[in-house]
């Protein structure tokens, strides 16, 4: 695989900064605008490099499907961040008209086909979309994003078996952040407990399985690039285990109405008392690290990086303002779109 050009690397940094800033703004609404976000949000901070590296191979006609932790992908695919934020606030101008919310962002015109809030359930959806791509014979592929927890679901095993058997053009990107909510991988995964990479699961399904440092966008781009090339040529699926560290807690606190929502401390500290593990992850934060690398190797100047950061901050500030000002949907719209 060719290494991304300087411009492509700057674009990758920009997208990582956009995801991070969007997520920071989601978090900040809990203090700046208490009550505007209801239910459950899940942030992608720590996984930006993995998302951006993977989707650097996305072409028009491809599709991506993901989970309830779904803010990052549509940002990269070109969704309007104002409409995304309005959706998370349940407003009329939301990407999904306020019917889906944070866990179900969808943007078909940009190739973001759907997101299931049920762990593992979206994996067969991606394979089905890949079957459609296989029939169309245009070399299109489907990106299937899910977490390490999903690999313990039957849907994962059933789908990887069929996808490999049928040589479907799908790339299974497992973002392994080491925790299923408050359960560590070693507590729930036989491979993890045995000290094996989770990518080893691919061998059961006769497909390539590879583990990559998901905090390095160039490494992810190289690894996923090989998987995408294989899939486009009809060589079938690959399981990519992308190792990331979730920098926020699993989600905002789960609470009944009236209790202000917020993001609690990460489970590594709050549950397991592993402050050093978490602080090490923070020191390895992929966003400042990639920026630092690009500045250091002269791909862009610090001033240019600052300018991108300011522009991104302005975009996300505008997204929040737009969302807060957007009206709630008309009540009758709750009955629209039940049936096609």
């Amino acid at each position: 695989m060719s290494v991304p050009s300087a411009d492509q690397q700057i674009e990758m940094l920009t997208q990582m900064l956009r995801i991070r800033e969007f997520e920071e703004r989601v978090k900040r609404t809990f203090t700046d605008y208490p009550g505007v976000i209801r239910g459950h949000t899940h942030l992608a901070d720590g996984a930006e490099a993995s998302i951006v590296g993977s989707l650097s191979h996305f072409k028009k006609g491809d599709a991506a499907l993901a989970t309830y932790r779904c803010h990052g992908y549509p940002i990269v695919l070109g969704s309007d961040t104002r409409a995304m934020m309005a959706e998370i606030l349940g407003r009329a101008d939301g990407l999904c008209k306020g019917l889906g919310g944070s866990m179900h962002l969808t943007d078909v015109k940009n190739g973001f086909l759907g997101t299931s809030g049920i762990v593992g359930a979206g994996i067969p959806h991606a394979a089905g979309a890949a079957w459609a791509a296989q029939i169309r014979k245009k070399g299109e592929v489907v990106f299937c994003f899910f977490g390490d927890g999903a690999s313990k679901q039957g849907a994962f095993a059933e789908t990887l078996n069929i996808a490999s058997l049928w040589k479907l053009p799908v790339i299974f990107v497992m973002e392994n952040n080491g925790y299923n909510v408050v359960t560590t991988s070693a507590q729930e995964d036989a491979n993890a407990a045995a000290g094996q990479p989770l990518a080893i699961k691919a061998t059961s399904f006769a497909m390539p399985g590879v583990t990559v440092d998901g905090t390095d966008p160039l490494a992810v781009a190289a690894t996923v690039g090989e998987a995408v090339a294989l899939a486009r040529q009809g060589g079938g699926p690959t399981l990519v285990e992308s190792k990331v560290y979730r920098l926020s807690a699993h989600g905002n606190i789960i609470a009944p109405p009236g209790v202000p929502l917020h993001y609690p401390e990460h489970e590594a500290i709050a549950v397991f008392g592993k402050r050093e593990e978490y602080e090490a992850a923070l020191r390895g934060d992929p966003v400042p690290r990639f920026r630092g690398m690009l500045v250091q190797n002269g791909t862009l100047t610090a001033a240019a990086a600052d300018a991108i950061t300011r522009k991104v901050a302005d975009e996300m500030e505008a997204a929040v303002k737009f969302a807060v000002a957007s009206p709630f949907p008309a009540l009758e719209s709750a009955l629209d779109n039940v049936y096609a």
Partner: protein
Amino acid sequence: MAQLPFIAAIDAGIHQEMKRDSSVLYFGQNLATTENHDFVKAYGHDRVRVTPISETAEIGMAVGAAMAGLRPVVELYMAEFMLVAMDQVVNEAPRFRYMSGGQVKVPLVLKAGFGFACGWAGQHTGSLTALFMGVPGLKVVVPSTAADAKGLMATSIRDDNPVVFLHHYLLTLEHGEVPDGEHLVPFGQATVRRTGTDVTIVSTGWMVNRALAAAELLAAEGIQAEVIDPRTVAPLDLDTILKSVAKTGRLVVVDQAPRHATVGGIIAADVVEHGFESLKAPILQVNARDATVPYSEPLEAYVIPDEARICAAVRKVCKTAR
């Protein structure tokens, strides 16, 4: 018109749509395993495939393929096999159009037999229709004649929503006149299978046959029963039922499911709410007895509603005056 068994009529409906629309897929377990398979010969392996025993993946892939523009028909054989993948049926397929604010369509058909009360014991004999009928976004189809089997299957495939197509296994070899050529039966239109003036009987699937047989026995006693088959329970044609009850003043609902898991109970509640003034007697329900379907033949017959129980319920409501 051709005389076809019910099961062949369903296939005719699938063929009709696969011929006219190359986006229709047909797949499932234990089909299309040789090049001699009818559907493989006609449409090829891109569109017709055998799957492993993986209901969650089969139905989940149908959801994804549908969102990507295809029209999958999943052969599930038995309704109980959907229970293995209930998340995909109830909490995935019918949710995506809504949660995406109408951006995607999920046109798929889940074809499953049910109610095989002929010695299949406890796990292959259920009547699960009511489990699906209340799920917003799902449509639920229950044909009782060969002609409807073809026409409703074709309409199911053309529909832009997920459809659970439930065919009663005891109807499999029942022959009926089936229209040649393109045949479509609209959703949400009940059919009056027998006209009568004294009592309305509403039932679906194989129970329609038992209701019709009961109606003949009752006619000999001077009671004229009107038998209505809703054909689709989601959407449900309540108007036809209410009109009939307005005429007869009496309603018996017959359902092969146990009492608190029936379509009949839901229809009864709707009729009470919207047609109470028509009723001359309480609505009676004839259901399976509240047990797992037993294996032993006389016990199975005891649990499943039969003509005698339908007749007894009708006689009781006809004796009641208000």
